């Protein structure tokens, strides 16, 4: 069976066959190389070459992510270093600072305090109202309470509480109906004002002529002042909020 009918002419056949041989050799070489490469890729990467592009894209993205993460790590490390240095330096300062903070808390009224002082008890007048009388004459007003507190502070009180409500720098006394509001809490009579400070001086100042206490007594309000070796004043339960005020230097 002659596959090549032109075998009758030897020269042509030779040239044809040589050309075919070369082409086939080239094709076979290419195919084998390709197969070997593909096998190598699969062996080494365990991934068929079709997915390489997709995976390459993912790799690029990951590398970019890693770069940003590495810069983050560097930043965080330098921060940590700074903190560590600060901690080493600040350990001694920290004790001083915490003492300072304790003092400031006491000043601001954030701690319970106890010490010598006195208690002032005030109540509405027990006199019965006659028809035509102004009821305001028998009711204690916030101004009376404020006056007593002012007198106490003026005579050296360091901590004052009205019915368990600490009087601090942000405390305002106000009248609402027959009750008095202190630190946004309603107070009702009888009022018990506790003050820590020099008892003798405070008592003398409260009992001085024309004082608030004398005026109240003149209007038949029961006022009872008792000295104590040790009284307790509770901490301020509210919080200071500074939404408008900001710390600043001397302002002109």
């Amino acid at each position: 069976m002659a596959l090549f009918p032109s075998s009758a002419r030897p020269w042509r056949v030779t040239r044809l066959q040589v050309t075919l041989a070369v082409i086939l050799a080239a094709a076979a070489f290419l195919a084998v190389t390709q197969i070997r490469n593909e096998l190598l890729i699969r062996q080494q990467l365990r991934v068929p070459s079709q997915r390489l592009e997709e995976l390459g894209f993912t790799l690029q993205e990951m590398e970019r992510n890693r770069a940003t993460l590495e810069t983050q790590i560097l930043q965080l490390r330098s921060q940590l270093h700074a903190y560590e240095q600060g901690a080493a330096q600040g350990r001694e300062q920290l004790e001083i600072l915490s003492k300072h903070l304790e003092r400031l808390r006491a000043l601001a009224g954030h701690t319970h305090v106890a010490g010598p002082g006195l208690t002032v008890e005030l109540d509405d007048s027990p006199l019965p109202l006659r028809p035509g009388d102004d009821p305001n004459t028998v009711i204690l007003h916030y101004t009376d309470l404020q006056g007593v507190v002012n007198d106490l502070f003026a005579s050296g009180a360091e901590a004052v509480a009205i019915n368990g409500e600490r009087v601090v720098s942000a405390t305002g006394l106000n009248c609402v109906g027959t009750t008095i509001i202190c630190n946004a809490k309603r107070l009702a009579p009888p009022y018990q004002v506790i003050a820590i400070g020099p008892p003798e001086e405070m008592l003398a100042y409260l009992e001085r002529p024309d004082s608030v206490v004398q005026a109240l007594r003149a209007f038949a309000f029961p006022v009872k002042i008792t000295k104590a070796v040790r009284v307790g004043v509770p901490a301020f339960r509210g919080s200071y909020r500074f939404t408008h005020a900001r710390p600043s230097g001397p302002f002109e």
Partner: protein
Amino acid sequence: MWLPIAGLVVGIILGFLVSVEIPLGVVKYTAIAILAAIDTILGGLRAQLEERFDLSIFITGFFANTVLAALLTAIGDLLGVDIYLGAVIAFSIRIFGNVGFIRRDLLERYWRGARQREAAGQASR
């Protein structure tokens, strides 16, 4: 006729002996080019069996198809469309067709030969 087969064998052996690293980016191109080459060789075989083989057509077809396939793949890469899939399908269909024709030609040849032998046998008797 043994020379082309010898060439094929030499090519295979050469491929195993010489290890050429094809870069990862080019693997796709060479794959499609090989497909084109196989198609052309099968086409040539079919033409040979149908006794209308022409060397110049075969050679030009071999190179043109191979280059065109690689080019198509490159264009597809540039456009971001997998055009090489189209080339793969086209070449696969052609390979199937060629193999079918080759099978039919070989069978016809065998039948014709059998008939001739039969006739020769009858004549000699």
